[in-house]
C-alpha cells in the first residue's frame, strides 16, 4: 500500500494534482461538495442523502411527477420560502395551474418576491433560459410541455452561467429519456404514500432506497 502510494506519487505528480480537483469524482466514496450557500430542502431524509446536504446552489433540478397532487410543490416550498425571505425574486414560468396565494403565503413565501410569467405557449423555455441566465433570480420554476435533450442542456448551461437554481417539473414518463440536469428526482404514489426517489445526482451513486415524502393518512 505504502509502496503503491509512493509509486503513484513519484510516477505522476500531475495526476495527483488532477485527482485533487473537486470536479473529479472517482466513484469510490460519495463526493463531498462544499458549497458557499447551504440550502436545506426542508426534508431531513433528503438532505441526508444529497452530497451538498440540501439543494444545489446552481444548476437544473428535474422533478418528475407521476401526476399532479403528489406533493411536488411541497418539495420546493421550504426552499422558496427561504429564498423569498432573502429578497430574491422567484419566477414561475407558465405554471399549469394558479398558485393559490393564501396557501403560498401561509407556507412562508413572501408574495412580493413571487412572479408569474405568462408566455406564449412555445416560448416558455426561452423565458426560462433568459431568467436563469440573467443571474438575478433566486429560483426559476418551469413546466415545459416539450423539452428535448438539447433545450434542457441550454437551460442547464444558462443556470450554471447565471449561477441560479432552476426547477423543471415534468411527467414521470420523461424519466426514461436522458437528461443533462445534475439532479433528477421522481415522485410516485405507493401504498404507503408519495415516494421520492433520486434518479440521478452528480457526486453520488443514486441511492436505491426511496424517501417517503407524504405518508398516506390512516
Amino acid at each position, binding site marked *: 500500500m505504502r509502496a503503491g502510494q509512493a509509486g503513484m506519487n513519484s510516477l505522476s505528480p500531475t495526476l495527483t494534482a488532477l485527482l485533487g480537483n473537486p470536479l473529479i469524482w472517482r466513484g469510490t466514496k460519495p463526493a463531498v461538495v462544499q458549497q458557499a450557500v447551504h440550502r436545506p430542502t426542508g426534508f431531513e431524509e433528503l438532505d441526508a442523502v444529497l452530497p451538498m446536504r440540501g439543494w444545489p446552489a446552481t444548476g437544473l433540478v428535474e422533478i418528475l411527477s407521476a401526476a399532479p397532487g403528489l406533493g411536488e410543490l411541497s418539495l420546493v416550498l421550504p426552499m422558496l420560502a427561504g429564498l423569498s425571505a432573502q429578497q430574491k425574486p422567484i419566477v414561475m414560468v407558465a405554471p399549469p395551474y*394558479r*398558485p393559490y*396565494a393564501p*396557501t403560498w*403565503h401561509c407556507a412562508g413565501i413572501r408574495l412580493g418576491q413571487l412572479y408569474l410569467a405568462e408566455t406564449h405557449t412555445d416560448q416558455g423555455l426561452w*423565458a426560462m433560459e433568459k431568467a436563469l441566465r440573467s*443571474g438575478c433570480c433566486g429560483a426559476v420554476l418551469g413546466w415545459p410541455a416539450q423539452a428535448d435533450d438539447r433545450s434542457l442542456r441550454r437551460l442547464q448551461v444558462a443556470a450554471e452561467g447565471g449561477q441560479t437554481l432552476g426547477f423543471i417539473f415534468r411527467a414521470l414518463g420523461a424519466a426514461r429519456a436522458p437528461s443533462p440536469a445534475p439532479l433528477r428526482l421522481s415522485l410516485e*404514489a405507493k401504498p404507503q404514500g408519495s415516494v421520492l426517489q433520486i434518479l440521478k445526482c452528480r457526486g453520488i451513486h443514486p441511492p436505491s432506497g426511496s424517501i417517503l415524502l407524504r405518508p398516506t*393518512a390512516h
Partner: protein
Amino acid sequence: MLWAAIFLPQLALDGVLRRHAAPEAPLVLLQGSDQHRIVFAVNPAAQAAGLRPGLSLNAALALLPSFESLPYNPQEFLQYQEFLAAWAYRYSSLVYLDGSDILLLEIEASLGLFGPWPKFEHQLRADLTALGFHHQLALAPTARAACVLATAHDGALAFDRTQLRKVLAAVPLQATRLPSAQIAALAGMGIRTLQQLLALPRTGLTHRFGSGLSIYLEELLGDRIEIRDCYRPPDVFDLKLEFNYEIVEYRPLLFPLKRLLGDLGVYLEQRDEGVQHFEVRLFHAEQEPTSLPIGLLSPTRDASQLYEFCRSRLEQLVLPAAVRGLQLCAHELPPLPATTRDLFAPETNGSMTWEILRERLRAKFGNNAVMQILPHADARPEYSMRTVVQLTEEPPSLALPPRPTWLLPAPVLWEENIKKILKGPERIEAGWWDGEDFRRDYYIIQTYRGQIAWVFRPVGIKTGPWMLHGWFA
C-alpha cells in the same frame, strides 16, 4: 465672470436653409400681411441679385424675376432659439437669451472643463458650423459688453475691464444695441463710436436721455450688476429626427433611436430624473404617424436599458409604411428614487437586474405577462386571490383551514372514483351580495393514483360526481 456671446445674424434664414435641398438658389423670407409683403431675410444668392431685407415683394420681383420665397415663421424661429439654448446648456449652466439673436453663456466656470478659451471657442464654432448656423463670437467680462462686441466684431476678446475699455472704444454706435432713436439722436450730436459716448459726462447724458442710457453704460463697463432671467431647459423631452430617405425595415431605425435615447439619457442625468412613460413616433410620408407608447414599471435613465426595451418593442412592430422621421417624446419625467447600495451586499452574478429582466419579458409577451398574486378577503376560492402587476406591500398573515397549493382556474368535473375522504366537509357559502353566490361542501380527498385533491359537491347533493378545484401538490 466671463461672458461669451454668440450673435446669430441670420437665425431665421439659417433655420430654413439647414433643411433646404438647394440652399444656393436665391431664397427670401417674407413677412407682413398678404397685401403688403416685405422681405425679411435673404440668402447670399438673393443678396447678390440686389435683394435686401425691408424691400417690398413687388420691388424684389422687379430686381429679380424668379426666386423662392417662404413665409417667415416666428414660431419656428423660437424653436431654433430654444434648440440653440439647449445646445449651449451643454457648455454652461448659465445660458441667457438676449433679444432674438444673441445667446449668452457664462463660461468662467466652464473653462476648467472645456478651456482654455481658444480651444473652447474652436469647439463652439465647430458645433455651430456643424449645426448650420452663422455666428459671431465675442468674450467679455460683462454680459452687456459681450453682446455688443459679438454684434460689432466677430472674435473680439476682453478678459478684464481694462482690456474691455480698449476693445469697446472702437465699436460704432450702430452695434451698441441701443434703441435706434437714441443712436440717431447721438449721431445728431456728432457721436459715432462708444469711445466718444463714454467720454461724455454721465449727468448730462442722464438729463438728456433718461436713466436708461447711463444704466446701460454702467452695465457695459461692469460698474453695475446686471440682472437677467436665465434660460431653463424645458421640462419635457421632445426630439425629432428626419431622414432624407425612406426606411422600410426596423433595423436601420435602431441606430438613430439609440442616439435619441442617448440624448434622453444625458438630459435625464443632468436633471437627476428618470423616465417611465414615453412615446416613440414613426413618421410616414402620407399616413398618420405610428405611435409606439412605452411604459415601464419603474423610472430609469439608463440609455442602454431604454434602448433594450424600445428595441424589443420595435422588433414586434409591423411597419405600415416607409418611415421618414423618428420622434421621441417624454412628458413625464419623475424624479428617480435614490438608490442605496449595501457595501457588503453579495454581488449579483449576471449583468442584469430583475427590473431589466421583467421589462424584457413584458416587452416580449405583453404588459401583463409578469404578474404577482395576493390573497383577497373572500371566502369563495375563485375570489380569494388577486393578480397585480406590482405588489407594493406584503399582505398580512392569515390563518387558514387547509387549502391546496394549486387552484384550478375553474372547477372541473372529477369522474374518477375517490379512494378516501381525508377531511371534510367544509361548507363554503358566500357571495349572496354580488349574485355570484354558491353553497358548497369542500372535501380533501385521496385519489386512487395517490393524489390529494380539493373537491366539492353543491350542498344537498350526496352522491354523484365531484368537482375538482385544487391540488395539494
